[in-house]
């Protein structure tokens, strides 16, 4: 929750305009996240993390056209928040036979978040490299989006728990 609140606050106060609107969206993101954590409700977490991402998108839509250099860090933090949130709602095991599991897993979460931030930076670097957008590149983007939705459909078809 602290990470999510920090990300929402940073997004709001970094922009310098439309603070109230961004604050409202950030606050709206924290509510379902809190609810999801309290009642172990996965859709609440999805909505919360999604709204945090929407806050970022809103800031971009309302802000200047220049490239946001903080986007990779935001992406890493967003993934870190999401990972911790889903970890929090996992079924509790009364006895941890191996206490070393928790630090190992935390290290893994940190590593994947950092890798995610690096990948986001690569995406931005590629986007700002001066490569002119075209039908081919746009087709790749559409295919990636379709692939992501296909994964969603596959998940929905299988038994989800």
């Amino acid at each position: 929750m602290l990470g999510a609140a920090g990300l929402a606050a940073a997004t709001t106060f970094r922009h310098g305009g439309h603070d109230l609107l961004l604050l409202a969206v950030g606050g709206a993101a924290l509510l379902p996240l809190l609810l999801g954590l309290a009642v172990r409700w996965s859709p609440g977490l999805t909505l919360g993390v999604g709204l945090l991402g929407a806050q970022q998108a809103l800031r971009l839509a309302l802000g200047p056209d220049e490239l946001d250099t903080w986007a990779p860090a935001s992406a890493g933090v967003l993934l870190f928040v999401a990972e911790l949130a889903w970890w929090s709602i996992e079924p509790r095991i009364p006895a941890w036979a191996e206490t070393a599991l928790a630090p190992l897993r935390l290290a893994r979460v940190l590593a994947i978040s950092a890798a995610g931030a690096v990948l986001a930076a690569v995406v931005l670097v590629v986007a700002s490299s001066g490569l002119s957008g075209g039908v081919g590149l746009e087709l790749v983007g559409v295919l990636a989006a379709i692939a992501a939705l296909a994964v969603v459909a596959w998940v929905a078809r299988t038994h989800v728990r």
Partner: protein
Amino acid sequence: MTRAATTKLGAYAALAGVGLIAALVLGRPEPAALAAPFALLLVVGLSLAERPKVSALFELDAERQVEGEPVQALLELRAENTVTQLELLLDLPRGLATEAPNPRLLRLYAGERPELEYPIRCERWGAYLVGDFFLRTQDRFGLLVYEQKLELPRPLKVYPRGEEVERLLRPLETQSFAGSQTPRVRGEGIEFADLRPFVPGDRVRRVNWRATARRGEPWVNETHPERNTDVVIFLDTFAEARDLAGGTLDLAVEAAGSLAAHYIQEKDRVGLVAFGVVLNWLNVSSGIVQLYRVLDSLLDTEIFLSYAWKDIDVLPVRTLPPRALVLALSPLLDDRSVRALIDLRARGFDLAVVEISPVPFVERGTGELDDLAYRLWRLRREALRASYLRLGVPVVEWQRGMPLQAALEEVRTFRRHARVVRV
């Protein structure tokens, strides 16, 4: 093994998809950058996910144990590939419990063979199969869940913990086999009975020289022979009253086990009749093997609901030998068993009834009508006991927490003054 996607997988895919679409709609790379870590985790997680290959060996250090005592169980896991997070649950049947952490969370490395100990506490008598394990593993990133059930059944018999009985109830008549009981008749034996004058045919070794010297003529010792007795434990399994802590059947089984052990210890022959919807019987016999037969039969005792009438005629003749003491353990809740006991008495069997009182298991209602019903029920039970007593059948009430010896002594007191009457 079953595989299922977690909600996290769906959520991440949705977030990645929305981010990519937002990048296309807004025409800016930042939403794609935000979506990229989620997509990365999906790609890495799904490509690295592999089915866990876990097998196990399971052993118990004993196949038989007494109620309340522990049994050590050992589980050896074998992992062919690394399992980062394994949730392991030992599914114990009701009546058994473990003090070890259950479920537990483990990390298994490929080729590793960890041994896990489960001290199992036998809380209730019964015949069990122990060894059902549920395994749940996740991939490294929590996107997929694998579930597996390992069935490694090992039999475990938990015998009821009987209580010490100092003096057993004796049948009115003994049998003709050698045993530890002294009958009223006189014959070859070592138990002194009386003195009498010598008659031709008496063996010289039986001459009592002191008495002979005192009286001036030969006198011989008379002795009682040592005989065994037959005891049939009659267990009523038609109905029971129970609460969370136990029931009348539990008490009856514990008493039956205890009585059987003590009778067999005294070289008597013991038989068992579990009279209920499911009929179970053992012909009378003696020895340690018979004791285990009786105990094993007791473990199978269960209450089944049925309204079908059943009387004593369904019992094979040999299960109720003549001159045997039939010791009935019954809550006297079902008309069929009540009727069967009266039948036994009418056929001349030496019968004693230990009534496993259902009263402590019945809650007295709060309303006036409930109270009236309760009192009527108690009155009917007293009337039933009186009818048994009129037939010369001793009926004693035995409750949880009361020594079994006290009930047996009460029967003995009744039988001291009562005599068998053929009806």
